[in-house]
């Protein structure tokens, strides 16, 4: 009898199977993930979650019989009061519920109407953002950064012993030995054995003596040749060669602008924040080299960190141009347009002080749009949005947008719309050829 302690064996044996199940039910899981997000709080998106999917997606069909009519008998236990001839009311759900009798109700029966998957953060995000792309991430400049990675680059005749390619070395060695006719050691052994045999005899005939001397000469020849032609010669050695290949990288920066003025109600700010949160997680997941700049504005604009941007309340009037000026300032100072791909996302309720709107449009068209790749503007509207119609900002941005396709505009009035709008803004475009991801 053996006792084996398996507790330290590698765990997660079924992770691959689980991944395949997830892959198979991908569309159902994706739907469930998006439903979960549109209902729940987005702040938790990044943390992974559990979702339920209908069992159909993972159904395994078999041939099996269903009892629908006729007569069958069953034996049950626990009779307390029945005597022969009693009648029992058929349970309401009853009838042909049992498949084909008893005995197999265990594995396939209960609880198969839905499946719950506990998704970790990466799986969740992968399913959530699925097929989205950052638009037109054109590589402006490949920067040779510090990071390089070794890459196989053929063979070389010198190198460190740890990189010795044994199979190739031996192949060359063998070719050289055959080519130069190095005697095989078996050959030498054979000659030596024969010599020994002859020498051990007491008297030798002349013929044998001749043979012996001939063999001795041959032995000397063979030995000389063997020492002259080595088994492995330095010329045979082959090493795997690695070349340091610089990793090309594109750099991108995303400016997030949010209106936090008094006209933005908490609900509207919440919508805007959700949009940026999605954006933030999306960028974090997809691109390793994306800088984020958070700018919030009321009557004046300031650059803030992520935590303040999302969580710190503030109120005041509205001067949109101040935010755009801030963008231009930060961009000029830190993100030269020749080296960075620049994206801007702006969320606002469309309110702006009257005198400022034309200046805003001007800044946008002449200051920002020429240097950016993509400018997404979402306007969050209150519940009375339908009555209000177009805002000043919307109208003036609309004029700019008609001249410049890099400006995209969408309206959002409800939590449920956030994700469709987000998808719409970032779904891959047909004409996005040449886009390069880092």
């Amino acid at each position: 009898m053996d006792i084996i302690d398996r507790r330290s064996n590698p765990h997660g044996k079924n992770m691959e199977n689980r991944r395949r199940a997830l892959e198979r039910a991908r569309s159902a899981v994706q739907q469930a993930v998006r439903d979960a997000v549109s209902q729940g709080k987005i702040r938790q998106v990044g943390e992974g979650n559990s979702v339920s999917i209908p069992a159909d997606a993972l159904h395994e069909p078999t041939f099996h019989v269903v009892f629908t009519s006729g007569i069958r008998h069953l034996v049950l236990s626990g009779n307390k009061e029945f005597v022969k001839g009693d009648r029992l009311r058929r349970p309401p759900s009853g009838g042909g519920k049992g498949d084909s009798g008893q005995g197999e109700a265990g594995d396939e029966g209960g609880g198969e109407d839905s499946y719950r998957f506990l998704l970790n953060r990466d799986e969740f995000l992968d399913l959530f953002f699925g097929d989205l792309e950052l638009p037109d991430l054109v590589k402006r400049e490949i920067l040779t950064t510090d990071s390089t990675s070794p890459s196989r680059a053929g063979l070389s005749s010198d190198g460190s012993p740890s990189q010795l390619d044994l199979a190739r070395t031996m192949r060359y060695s063998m070719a050289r030995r055959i080519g130069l006719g190095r005697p095989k050691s078996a050959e030498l052994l054979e000659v030596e054995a024969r010599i020994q045999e002859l020498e051990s005899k007491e008297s030798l005939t002349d013929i044998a003596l001749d043979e012996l001397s001939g063999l001795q000469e041959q032995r000397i020849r063979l030995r000389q040749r063997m020492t002259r032609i080595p088994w492995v010669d330095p010329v045979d050695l082959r090493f795997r060669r690695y070349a340091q290949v610089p990793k090309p990288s594109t750099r991108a920066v995303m400016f997030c602008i949010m209106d936090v003025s008094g006209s933005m109600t908490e609900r509207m700010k919440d919508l805007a924040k959700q949009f940026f949160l999605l954006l933030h997680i999306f960028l974090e997941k997809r691109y390793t080299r994306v800088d984020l700049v958070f700018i919030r504005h009321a009557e004046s604009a300031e650059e803030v960190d992520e935590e303040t941007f999302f969580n710190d309340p503030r109120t005041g009037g509205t001067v949109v141009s101040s935010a755009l000026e801030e963008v231009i300032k930060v961009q000029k100072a830190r993100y030269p347009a020749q080296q960075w791909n620049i994206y801007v996302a702006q969320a606002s309720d469309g309110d702006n002080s009257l005198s400022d709107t034309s200046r805003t449009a001007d800044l946008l068209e002449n200051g920002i749009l020429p240097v950016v790749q993509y400018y997404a503007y979402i306007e969050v509207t209150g519940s009375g949005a339908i009555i209000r119609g177009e805002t000043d900002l919307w109208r003036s941005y609309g004029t700019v947008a008609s001249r410049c396709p890099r400006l995209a505009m969408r309206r959002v009035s409800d939590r449920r719309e956030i994700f469709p709008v987000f998808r719409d803004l970032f779904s891959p475009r047909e004409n996005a050829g040449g886009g390069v991801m880092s």
Partner: protein
Amino acid sequence: MTEDLLYSGTDWNFQIIRNCYDAIEEIAEKELGLDVFSNRIEIITSEQMLDVYTSSGMPLGYRHWSYGKRFVSHENAYRKGLMGLAYEVVINSDPCISYLMEENTATMQALVIAHAAFGHNHFFKNNRLFQEWTEPSQILNYLEFARGYIARCEEIHGVRAVERVLDAAHALQGQGVHRHSGTRRVDLRAEQERARERRAWEDQSYNDLWRTLPLSAEESSGGTNPADLSARRQLGLPEENILYFLEKHGPRLASWEREIIRIVRLIAQYFHPQPQLKLMNEGCATWVHDEIMSCLHKKGKIDDAAFMEALHSTSNVINQPGFDQGSASFNPYALGFAIMKDIARIATAPSEEDRLWFPDIAGNNQPLETLRHAWAEYRDESFIRQFLSPKVIRDFRMFRLEDDAAQSYFLVDAIHDDAGYRDIRRVLADSYDPSNWSVGLEIVHADMQGSRTLHLEHRTSSGRLLHDKDAALTLSALADLWGYQVSLKEVDMESGATLGLRESSPE
């Protein structure tokens, strides 16, 4: 006496397990006369236990999403607390592997060693059905081969292509056994050799030149199966083993696809006896552990507290909820254990009734011989038919219902009285008869000369048709493997009338 105790308290260590094992082995072999495969005991964590559940107790298996699905549902049930994990899982292999959970107390470890490593193990080794159908010494090697083979196929042909074949083959798993013919036990080691040789032959005989030859009209129109030309009888029809038929005669399958179908078929065959023996297997193991634990206690090897814990655990396992407590079926542990206890009682202290019902075993004073004979020669269905006594029927307060779908009520037509014993016993035994739950499906004709349509027949009666949606899906899986149209006719067994016809074509 305390120095004789194997352990005290609840903690265990490897030495305790070994001592318990030795003490149990002595009782099992000397007093109960059990004959077992050599044992291997493995200690695992609860997470590993979930893995074991997923692969039906097997320590390894090929990759497939359905196992992932099973894993997820077990995991969820476990995490929510809906399901406790078993204390052990045992595999019918030689050596016989028992998995013990690390959370078990010392008493539970002793109990599950008695239960699994001796009870189940004896049953695996000696029951006729297991002997006929399974090859315990080779199953683990074969599973390893299957896993490797399928992984290689995935590398060569892609995961999608392999998954397609596995999905379809899994759907037809229930139709993958030769139930009625003689060929049962397969030499699994020879199986691996066979696959290897076939591959080697293909590699050797591969000549790129042949690829450049123009195809003949016949070849380009479909498969090159020699069965094309053979008559129907050469196909061995009718054939109930659909997977076997596909493997041998599927006109459009590549050799690796045939091999995968074969793997699914052979594994299905390995598991084939298990559902027919569940009641006896669990009954046997429970009876053995109960006996052994009592014996250990009698000998003073475990203390009273440990024995109470063992009794408590046993009585939990053999609890039979009544029909009104939501249990429509019998707990195999409870019924199996009760019948076996009863056999021992009949053999040693029979009543008048027992002498009437079981004249050949009543009072023979050989309870162990009688039980060992029953464990070896019967399956659930015949075991109940033979050994369910009036006393057990009374103890369980069994009654029989007539379910006439046309009526709005169930009729109680037999209870635990003299008039009802035989009716109850017959119907209960029938419900354990595999022909009652398996589907009587056969391939009756394959039109190899013409359209290559495969004709199947399901012999049944009008109220027992195939589940509509599942049958359609399974049939389309079959059509996918067969490569041509498939038709399935449901026929009334008695009148021969057609009850339904389905057809499916490959996509």
